[in-house]
Each structure stands twice: as structure tokens, then as C-alpha cells.
């Protein structure tokens, strides 16, 4: 793949999304539209978390902490600092870059000391970071900056964010995230990420600077989490700290595990599935409730959990394993391994 082809894909995707963004409002109502947008945001989150958890083999469960930082930074920029002459898309674009950069900086700050930790310990540290961020935003109300007051809303939530995100921009960033992550993963640095997942000591002995690549994965992942936070802020026009709590953060991990760790297409499926599933289960729950003669029962979480348990029993490697969907298209017969002494 060359530079030209790379940009051609982005251009074709952009044109396609532009056409689609004209069609979608004609085809579905406002609620499904918002679901679609949420799927797009969750794709950005899941695909970027997959770089950390799936490809590099670290276990971060505080991804929404970075999304919160990005969201607040992006919303603050647009509400208080963006020049009034700027158009909506320009403000949005710049604010997303700022949100991503601030979140990426947090990723660096958190990553440097915590990436010495392995497995469970790293998970606990990232969880702690996510909770700290949530509590900080819950308690910061007004911040004086250079003579003016920035109202972050505290427990009331950050309100008055202009509605700048739309179907086109959310899905354009989802596309960009997937392209960037895939291009990284299928390259020499990408192989370095995977070697850390496979065997950190062996990777180091093979000349891979493991500390550098672990921190890099964390920073890149956090950057896109920040972008997703900004898209979220400008779609739902309110940011509330509870939206970024541990339970919701874990949903993103779920999307990655469900889709298959180390598969970008898997993360996309996971994001779509886990976002839409609760909506679908609303009907299923109502159906079962009526049959049982107890329509007031909300069985959504029961069915949801059961489905996840069944999936983990039947397919512990997730929907896609570590394969991409393209593997289905050019499948080739496996050359038989030569077994010794099997004459």
C-alpha cells in the first residue's frame, strides 16, 4: 500500500460518509441517529483501546478517564476560547485535536510510572486514574483563567456546549482512527507492539525498546480516547462526570474482548454490538416479561450477562480472535506441517 492508496481510501471514505450523512436523516428517526453516532464514538474508543489491550497486551480499564479529559478540554476550548469567526467544523476539528493532545499528555503522565506494572496491577492503576479524573471533574466547579471564569459545572455537569458533532464528523473520525491504528499495527512498530504482548523479555532481547513502545501505545490510545470524548461532548452537549465512571469504562473493555483482542474489525463489531444490544434487549425483555405474566420485570442485564457468559464459554478468544475480517476473503489452504517420523 502506498501513500496515494492510503489517501484514496480516506478520500473515498469521506465522500461515502458525506453521501450517507445526507441519506441517514431521511431514513431513520432522531433516536436511531443518535445511536448510530454513539456507535461511531464507541468505535473510536474501542479501536484505540485495542491498541493498548489487544495489540500491546497491556490491560487498561480506565479508557474513559482519558475520554473525560479530552471531552472537557475540547468543550472548554469551543465554549471559551475558540474565535467567534470560526465555523462549526473548524472549531470542532481544532477542539478535537486539543482534546486528543491533552488526553495524550495525560496518557504519557500516567503511562510512564504505571507501565512498569504488569497485568492486574496495571489494570488497578488505570482504574484508579479513571476514578480520580471522575472525582476531579465532579468537584471542580469554576476555574478562574486570566480574568475570566470557566465553569466546568462540577456535579451539575458541563452544560452549554455547542452541538457541533454530527453523523459525518463522528464517523469520519471513526474511519480515521481505524486507518491510523491499522497502518500502525501493520508496520514494524506494530510488530514491536505485538512482540511485547507475546513475550516482553524476548522482545527486549530482540532489540525492541519495550518501555518506549508501551508508553507509545498508551499515548496514541489516549489521544483517540480524548478525540472520542470531544466528539461525545459536542454530540450530547452536556458532559457529566458519572458518564465516565468505572462501569461505563468497562463497557469499552468489553467491546474489545467481545470483538477479539488484537483485531480491529473485531473492535468495530464489538463497539457496534455492545452499543446496540441493550436497545435490542429492551424488546426481548418485554417479550419474556409478558410471557411470564410479569411485564414490569427488566431482564435486560440478566440476558446481557448470560449472553456474555455464553460467548466467553463458546468463544473465549472473542468474535474475531486476533484475525481481521480480510482473512475470510483470502483464505488459503494451510500447508501441512511436516511431522517427523510419520513415514
Amino acid at each position: 500500500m502506498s501513500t496515494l492508496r492510503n489517501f484514496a481510501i480516506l478520500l473515498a471514505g469521506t465522500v461515502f460518509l458525506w453521501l450517507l450523512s445526507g441519506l441517514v436523516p431521511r431514513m431513520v428517526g432522531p433516536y436511531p441517529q443518535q445511536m448510530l453516532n454513539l456507535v461511531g464514538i464507541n468505535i473510536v474508543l474501542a479501536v484505540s483501546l485495542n491498541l493498548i489491550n489487544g495489540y500491546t497486551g497491556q490491560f487498561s480499564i480506565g479508557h474513559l478517564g482519558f475520554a473525560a479529559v479530552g471531552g472537557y478540554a475540547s468543550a472548554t476550548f469551543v465554549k471559551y476560547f475558540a474565535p467567534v469567526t470560526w465555523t462549526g467544523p473548524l472549531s470542532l476539528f481544532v477542539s478535537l485535536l486539543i482534546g486528543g493532545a491533552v488526553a495524550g499528555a495525560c496518557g504519557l503522565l500516567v503511562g510512564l510510572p504505571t507501565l512498569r506494572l504488569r497485568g492486574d496491577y496495571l489494570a488497578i492503576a488505570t482504574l484508579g486514574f479513571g476514578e480520580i479524573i471522575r472525582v476531579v471533574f465532579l468537584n471542580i466547579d469554576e476555574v478562574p483563567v486570566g480574568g475570566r471564569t470557566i465553569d466546568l459545572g462540577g456535579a451539575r455537569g458541563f452544560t452549554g456546549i455547542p452541538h457541533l458533532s454530527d453523523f459525518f464528523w463522528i464517523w469520519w473520525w471513526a474511519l480515521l482512527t481505524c486507518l491510523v491504528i491499522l497502518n500502525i499495527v501493520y508496520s514494524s512498530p506494530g510488530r514491536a507492539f505485538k512482540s511485547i504482548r507475546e513475550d516482553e523479555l524476548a522482545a527486549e532481547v530482540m532489540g525492541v525498546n519495550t518501555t518506549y513502545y508501551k508508553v507509545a501505545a498508551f499515548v496514541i490510545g489516549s489521544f483517540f480516547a480524548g478525540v472520542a470524548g470531544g466528539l461525545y461532548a459536542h454530540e450530547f452537549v452536556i458532559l457529566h462526570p458519572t458518564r465516565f465512571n468505572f462501569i461505563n469504562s468497562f463497557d469499552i473493555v468489553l467491546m474489545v474482548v467481545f470483538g477479539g483482542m488484537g483485531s480491529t474489525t473485531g473492535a468495530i463489531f464489538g463497539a457496534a454490538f455492545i452499543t446496540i444490544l441493550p436497545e435490542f434487549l429492551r424488546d426481548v425483555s418485554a417479550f419474556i416479561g409478558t410471557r411470564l405474566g410479569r411485564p414490569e420485570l427488566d431482564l435486560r442485564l440478566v440476558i446481557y450477562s448470560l449472553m456474555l457468559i455464553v460467548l466467553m464459554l463458546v468463544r473465549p478468544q472473542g468474535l474475531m480472535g486476533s484475525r481481521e475480517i480480510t482473512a475470510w476473503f483470502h483464505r488459503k489452504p494451510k500447508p501441512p506441517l511436516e511431522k517427523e517420523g510419520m513415514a
Partner: protein
Amino acid sequence: MPILEASGVTRRFGGLTAVNDFNISIEPGEVIGLIGPNGAGKTTAFNMLSGVLPPSEGDIRFEGKSIIGLKTHKVTQRGIARTFQNIRLFADLTVLDNVKIASHFRCGYTMAEAVLRAPRFVRREAEIERNAIDLLGIFGLAHLKDEVARNLPYGEQRRMEIARALATSPRLLLLDEPAAGMNPQESLELVEFIRFVRDKFDLTVLLIEHHMDVVMSICQRILVLDYGVTISKGTPKEIQSDPRVIEAYLGKEVEDG
């Protein structure tokens, strides 16, 4: 000038001295054996020479420059490669990717160039691919390049690990029990293979081995460790007749009372 020179290298774990006052000087092109009973400190010595473990005392100089304080990946980039006693492949990656990873530090393009699929990325990726396949070809593994490493038979995993180590373009190769788990016939082939690799890649080899036939037939000089102390040094002939070595391996004869 010796390619590798260790002087007074000592490693302590708490109260235990795993390696005590280890000295070695290897000339380019030599094949040196490191032997000793289990727990003698051979792997600890290897870990220090490959930069995995910092010595408590002493100096290790590679091609005249000290490697003390260097991170492991820097030591590899200087030109020391190693294999592991218990094979440590990137088990879920393909054979080709395993080899490519070992040349990552010379990949010659940045992550940004990878994201943009810049011309340099395209050119270098093609070269990396070609070099990796060439290397696998030398090892007779080219037909297995798309196979996942964990699916390889044991002997091929051993060979593959050496191939991967060589992909870092080392000048010194450290082999930790390359013949472990091999039968006499396979060990014999391994000896030929190590000779071939040394000549082909212009290497200096230091190896830990328990198979005495392997050590005796390939090594020009041998060091014997016991309880962290170097108890003997010399040619295979000298080692075989050294009473201290026999004692370390077989124990002392009980004097009749």
C-alpha cells in the same frame, strides 16, 4: 582485541552469590563452551552478558566498550544476540513476523511514516520482508513463513529461535542449551549447524550445554562453573582430565577408612 571481555563479574541475589568473579576473554571467531552442574550460575552469567541482568560488580566490555548500565535492547543493538534455555518465541505470531521483529530496531522509518504509508515505509518494508525470507531460507524454514510459531515442531522452534537471534545481525551469539531435548543424532546435526552458522555469519559463539559430545566436538575452549565459581578453563582435552571438573560432576571418591 577480544570481542568480549568480562572481568571480575559478580552477581549476588541477597545473600546468595550466583556468580563470583567471572572472567572471560573471547577472541573473534571462537566457539566457547560454558558448562557446569545445574545451578552453577551459567544462565545468570548469560543474563549478565546479554544485558538482561546488571552485575553487582565487575565490568563487561564488548568490542572494547563497556556494556554495563546499558538497557537490554541497547546491548542487542550493539551486536550481542541470545537464545533462551526454554524457547521464547513470539508464539502467536507467524514465523516471518518473529524474524521481522528482530530487525525492528533497524527498520529505518518512523511511526508517522508508517501511518502515512510514506515511500520510505513501502521501500523498507519490502527490504525487511526480503531479508527475513532470505534468512529463513538459509535455515530451511522459508516454507513455514506463514505458520504460527507455536505450531512448529520442537526442533524447528529451536532453529527458528537461532534464526530470529541472527536477524538482529549480531557479532556475538549466546546460545543457552541449544541441544536441550535433542537425541544424539539431532545433537550431531546441531553441531554441524552451529559451525555452518558461525562461518556463514562470521560469528563468535558462546554456548551453555549439557550434552558433552556437543561441547567437546565444537568448542575450542571451555569454562567450567560450579557454585558460581570458575573452577576450570581450557581446551576440551584439558577439561576432560581435570580432577576438579570430574569432582564437580561426579562427586569425590570416598576414601576407604
